[in-house]
């Protein structure tokens, strides 16, 4: 009876660890790896089999002669690489020390609530990324300041929209369209000179770099299900950004 309670606790702890990683943008193979490492760390578990897809986790563990199975659907898709690092460190600690399962559970709950940077720092650096990127593409100094300010607005808009709904196609579309509108206005008002360079800078915080990276790394290890779905995510995000930019350009410059 005691083992069963322990096994249940361990199961829900491993699922929580996996959920934190998956919802913050880890590759599926890393989530599987971490879950099975956590489960196999305690000797009363005789068998463990995680199955992770980008939208959910299935985990079966065996003890004595019972098997427990749990299904967890994951939802939000933010990118917080700090949490992934922390869970990774936690799993290493959990395996190497005699940490109790309740302690581990509490530790994970702390990680889940942790905020790496305050929101305004995040937005500010999103702006830096866009501004310096347009400098990298050879824009003038004034254009890069425009790109910096507009990128900050784009990032902030995307953050707000993510809280309101979770249809990322619409969110990226609106953010890209708003950014393009502001870029066109800044050129019309005579603040910026080169509209192309400003727009290239401001769409960089929206491009699907994480999806491409994770799709490649998952496919490499034979996890083609995750690879395909992340690849499709990258395509949809890229299309929505392109549509958002194109939509505003059509309104202001005609064509089509």
């Amino acid at each position, binding site marked *: 009876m005691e083992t069963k309670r322990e096994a249940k606790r361990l199961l829900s702890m491993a699922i929580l660890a996996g959920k934190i990683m998956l919802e913050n943008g880890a590759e599926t193979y890393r989530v599987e790896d971490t879950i099975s490492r956590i489960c196999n760390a305690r000797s009363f578990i005789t068998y463990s089999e995680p199955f992770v897809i980008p939208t959910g986790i299935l985990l079966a563990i065996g003890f004595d002669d019972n098997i427990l199975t749990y299904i967890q659907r994951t939802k939000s898709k933010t990118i917080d690489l700090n949490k992934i690092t922390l869970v990774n460190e936690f799993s290493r600690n959990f395996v190497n020390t005699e940490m109790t399962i309740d302690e581990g559970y509490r530790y994970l709950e702390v990680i889940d609530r942790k905020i790496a940077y305050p929101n305004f720092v995040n937005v500010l650096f999103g702006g830096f990324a866009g501004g310096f990127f347009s400098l*990298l593409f050879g824009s003038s100094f004034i254009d890069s300041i425009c790109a910096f300010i507009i990128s900050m607005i784009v990032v902030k808009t995307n953050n707000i929209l993510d809280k309101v709904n979770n249809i990322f196609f619409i969110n990226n579309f609106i953010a890209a369209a708003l950014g393009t509108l502001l870029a066109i206005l800044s050129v019309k008002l005579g603040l910026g000179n080169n509209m192309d360079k400003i727009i*290239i800078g401001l769409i960089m915080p929206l491009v699907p*770099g994480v999806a*491409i990276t994770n799709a490649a790394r998952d496919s490499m290890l034979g996890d083609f299900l995750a690879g395909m779905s992340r690849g499709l995510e990258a395509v949809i995000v890229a299309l929505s950004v392109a549509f958002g930019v194109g939509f505003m*350009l059509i309104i202001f410059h005609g064509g089509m």
Partner: protein
Amino acid sequence: MHYIMQFIYSFLSTAGFAVFFNIPRDSVIKSSFCGAAGWVVYVISNEFLSSSIAGTLLAAITVGLTGEFMAKRFKKPATIFTIPGIIPLVPGAGMYYTALAVIDKNFANAAELGTEAIFIALAIAIGIIVSSSISRALTNLNLEKSK
């Protein structure tokens, strides 16, 4: 001088992406270094090979290998070093110019630019696969030796 300026700008840009993706504070500078190294490789190879696809492939391999090396060295997941470094290589400019060409009804141009953007994205994926396969092979080799 040109390369030094490119290095500085890409370093700062990657640092921006690093904080934007919530990378742990002690790793921001390391991952910015990965990104800047990748970008300089991209600029140099773009000049000598005059092909942005080949340049992106080499740059992605550079980012991947430096990222994997740092991951081993500092015991952190490799993605926290590679993701910010990869972002400047993603064909955002290609996407934009493709959209512009479609709007101008210049479909021949759009097909050319769009294909190039798709191939650049694939080159990034292949670069990451190559670099992490190399690092995996080296780890396995070390394990074999230590047995």
